[in-house]
C-alpha cells in the first residue's frame, strides 16, 4: 500500500510542470527589475564598495602606489582643522537652499495656480531655468555678480552701491544660494503645482461656507494635503544641496577663505587637485553617511508631518 502511494506521488511529481504560474510570475518580476538591479549593482553598490576600499588606502596616482593604511584616513578626518568650517559651510548652504527654494517654489505654485490669462507663459518662464545648462547658467550669473556686473549696475540705477558679491564671505554664500535657488525652483514649483491641483475643491468650498479665512484654509487644508509633496521635495532638495559642486567651482572656487567650501568641493580638491584619493574617498564616505542619516530621519518623520501617513 505504502509502495503504491509512493509511486503515485512520484508519478504526480514527475507529471507536474517545473514552470508553474507562481514561478513564471517570479521570473517575470525578476526580469522586469533586472535592468535596474544590474544598474544599481554596477553604478552604485560596486562604486560604493570601492570608495570604502580606497578610503583604507593611501593612493598616490603619480607614483602609482596603493598602500593599505587601515583607519589612518579616518583618523586624519577627525583631526582635519578645516573640516568643521567645511561642514558649517555645507550646513549653511543646505539650510539656506532648502528654506528659500521650498518657500519660493510653494509661493510661486500658489500664485501660478490661479485662473488668469497667460498663466501658462508664466509657468513656462519660471520653469525654464531648470532646462538650461547648469554651467552656462552659473557662468552668466558669475558675470552678473561681478563688482562691475549687471546686478550692481541695476542697483546703481536706484542710487545704491552694491557689494562685491563674490568676494565677501557672507555675500558669496548668499550669492551661490540664490543662483542655485533660481536654477531649480521651477522643478519644485511644478511638483507643488501638481499637488495643489490635486486638492479637492469641495474642501475649500466647505471652509468658505464655514467662514474660514484664506490663510487658515491654506494652513488647515492645503498644507496637510500637499504634505507628501513637501516631504518629497524637501528630500530631493536636501540631498541635492549636499551635492552642490559646479556652482561653487565656477563662482567662488570655495572662497573667499573657506567660506563657500562645501563638502563635495572639499573632497574634489583633496582627491583630484591634491591627489589624496584615499582621503577624498574618506570624505565621500562621510558625505554618504550624512545623506543617508538625513534621508532616514526625514523618512521617519513622515508619520508626523505627512497627512496621509497618519
Amino acid at each position: 500500500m505504502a509502495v503504491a502511494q509512493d509511486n503515485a506521488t512520484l508519478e504526480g511529481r514527475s507529471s507536474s510542470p517545473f514552470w508553474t504560474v507562481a514561478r513564471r510570475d517570479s521570473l517575470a518580476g525578476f526580469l522586469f527589475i533586472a535592468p535596474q538591479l544590474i544598474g544599481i549593482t554596477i553604478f552604485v553598490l560596486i562604486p560604493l564598495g570601492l570608495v570604502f576600499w580606497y578610503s583604507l588606502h593611501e593612493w598616490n596616482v603619480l607614483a602609482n602606489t596603493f598602500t593599505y593604511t587601515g583607519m589612518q584616513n579616518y583618523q586624519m578626518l577627525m583631526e582635519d582643522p578645516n573640516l568643521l568650517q567645511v561642514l558649517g559651510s555645507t550646513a549653511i548652504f543646505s539650510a539656506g537652499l532648502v528654506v528659500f527654494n521650498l518657500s519660493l517654489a510653494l509661493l510661486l505654485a500658489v500664485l501660478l495656480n490661479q485662473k488668469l490669462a497667460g498663466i501658462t507663459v508664466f509657468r513656462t518662464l519660471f520653469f525654464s531655468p531648470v532646462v538650461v545648462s547648469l554651467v552656462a547658467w552659473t557662468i552668466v550669473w558669475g558675470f552678473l555678480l561681478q563688482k562691475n556686473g549687471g546686478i550692481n549696475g541695476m542697483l546703481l540705477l536706484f542710487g545704491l552701491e552694491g557689494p562685491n558679491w563674490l568676494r565677501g564671505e557672507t555675500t558669496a554664500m548668499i550669492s551661490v544660494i540664490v543662483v542655485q535657488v533660481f536654477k531649480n525652483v521651477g522643478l519644485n514649483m511644478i511638483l507643488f503645482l501638481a499637488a495643489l491641483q490635486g486638492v479637492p475643491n469641495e474642501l475649500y468650498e466647505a471652509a468658505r461656507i464655514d467662514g474660514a479665512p484664506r490663510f487658515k484654509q491654506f494652513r488647515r487644508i492645503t498644507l496637510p494635503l500637499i504634505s507628501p509633496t513637501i516631504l518629497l521635495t524637501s528630500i530631493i532638495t536636501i540631498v541635492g544641496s549636499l551635492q552642490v559642486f559646479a556652482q561653487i567651482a565656477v563662482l567662488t572656487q570655495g572662497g573667499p577663505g573657506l567660506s563657500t567650501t562645501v563638502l563635495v568641493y572639499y573632497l574634489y580638491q583633496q582627491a583630484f587637485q591634491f591627489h589624496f584619493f584615499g582621503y577624498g574617498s574618506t570624505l565621500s564616505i562621510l558625505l554618504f553617511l550624512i545623506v543617508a542619516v538625513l534621508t532616514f530621519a526625514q523618512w521617519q518623520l513622515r508619520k508626523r508631518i505627512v497627512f496621509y501617513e497618519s
Partner: protein
Amino acid sequence: MNKNTTLKSVLVALALTVPLACGGIANAQDAVNLRMTIWSAAEAHLKLFNEIAAGFKKDHPNVTVTFESLPFDTYTTALTTQIAGGNAPDMAWIFETAAYDFVNSGALYPLTDTLKATQGYNLDEVSTTATERWQKDGTLYAYPFSTSPFAVFVNNDLIKTAGAKTPAELIAAGEWTWDNAIATASAVGQKGKGGLIVRDFNYQIWQNLTSIWNGFGAAPWSADGKTCTMTEKPMVDALTFIHDAIFNKKAIPGPGENVDFFAGNAAMTITQISRASLLPKDKPFSWDLVPLPKGPAGDYALIGQAGIGVMQSGKNAKTAAEFVAYMTNPENSAKLSQFFPSARKSLLNAEVLKKTNPLLSKEQIDKVVIAGIATGKVIPGHTGFAQIQQIVRSGLDAVWRSDADVAGALKTICGQIGPLLKR
C-alpha cells in the same frame, strides 16, 4: 560533395587565411598609437603638431600620434584623473608649477639617454637653468619646450589721454621703476579705465604676482623650498605695495572687476609675449612691449615654462621618448618657437625670433624675449603645489580687502603652509 572533398576545401581555406590573419595580427601588434595631452586647442598649434607628427611617421610608418586638448583651467586635474583611471596618455604637457610633483614621483620616463642618442639633437645648447626644474639626479625627465618671458604690453593711447608718461618715455629717462609704472597706471585708473592688469591673476592665480614681487626680492619660500618666506620684509613690502596700488591708487583693477587690456580698456598688462596674437586688428591702438619695471631689488625677469614628459606607465614609453626627441630637435624647435619660445641658444637671436614673431620689433625681441629668457627666474613651484596653491589663495583673500592686515595675513599663511613645505 563527399567528406574528403570538404576536408580538403577546409584545409585549403585555412592555408590561405591563417597566414593572412597572422600577418594582420603581426601588423596590428607593430602599430603604435601615441597620445599626447595638451592644453591648447588653437587650430594653428594643432596644425603644427600634426605636421610634426606626420614628419615622424615618415621614419616610423607604424607610429601614429594624436593630440588631445584638455581644458587649460583644469588641465592637471584632468590629466591625473586620466592616470588614476588607468587611461594615462603616452606623453603630456606639464605646467612648471606641477613639474616637481611629476619629476619627483617617478611618473615620468627618463629622457636624457634618448635625447643624447638622437642625431643632431644637441641637448647641450639648452641652458641648465631652463632644464633645472625638469631634472632629478642629473637625468632629464621632461623637456621645457616653452620658455616664455613675462613682459608688459602697453596701450600708449590711453596713457597719453590721461596725461601720464608712457613706459617708453620712462625707459628713455632711466625711470622705468615700479613706483613710476604704478603712477602711470593710477593716472589712467583715475580716468575710469583699467590701469595695470596682471593677466590671469584674477585674485586666484597668485603665483602670477611673482612678476611684481620678484622686483622686491621677495619669494614665497626659500630656495631649497623648505621654509616659508612670506613673512619676510621683501614680501610684506611687495604685497603692501600691490595692496596700495589696488585700493588706494586705483592703479590695478580690484577683486571682481573685469577689465580686458586687449579690448583697449586698460593702460598696461603683464603677460607672456605669446599674447601678442590677441592685439586687436579691427580697432588697433598704439601699443608697445616693454620689460618688467625695475623694482627696489633691481632689474629682473620672469619666465613661465611648460615641459613635455613621457609617462612611465605607458606601453610605448621608449617610442614616445623618441617622438619627444623628434618634436624638440633643433629643426622642430625652430618651428615651435613661433608660439613657444625655445630655450635653445641657437634659436635665441633676433633674426630667428623675428621670423616667427612678426608683430614684435627687433628691439622688443632683444630687450624682452632674449634678455628675459637669458636672465629670468621661473615662476615658483613646489612638490604638492596644488595644495599649497590653494592654501595661499585662501589666505590671501584676507589681503584683498581695503582694511587688510597684510603682515598678519602672511603670518597666517606661513603657519599653514610651513609644515607642507617641510614634507
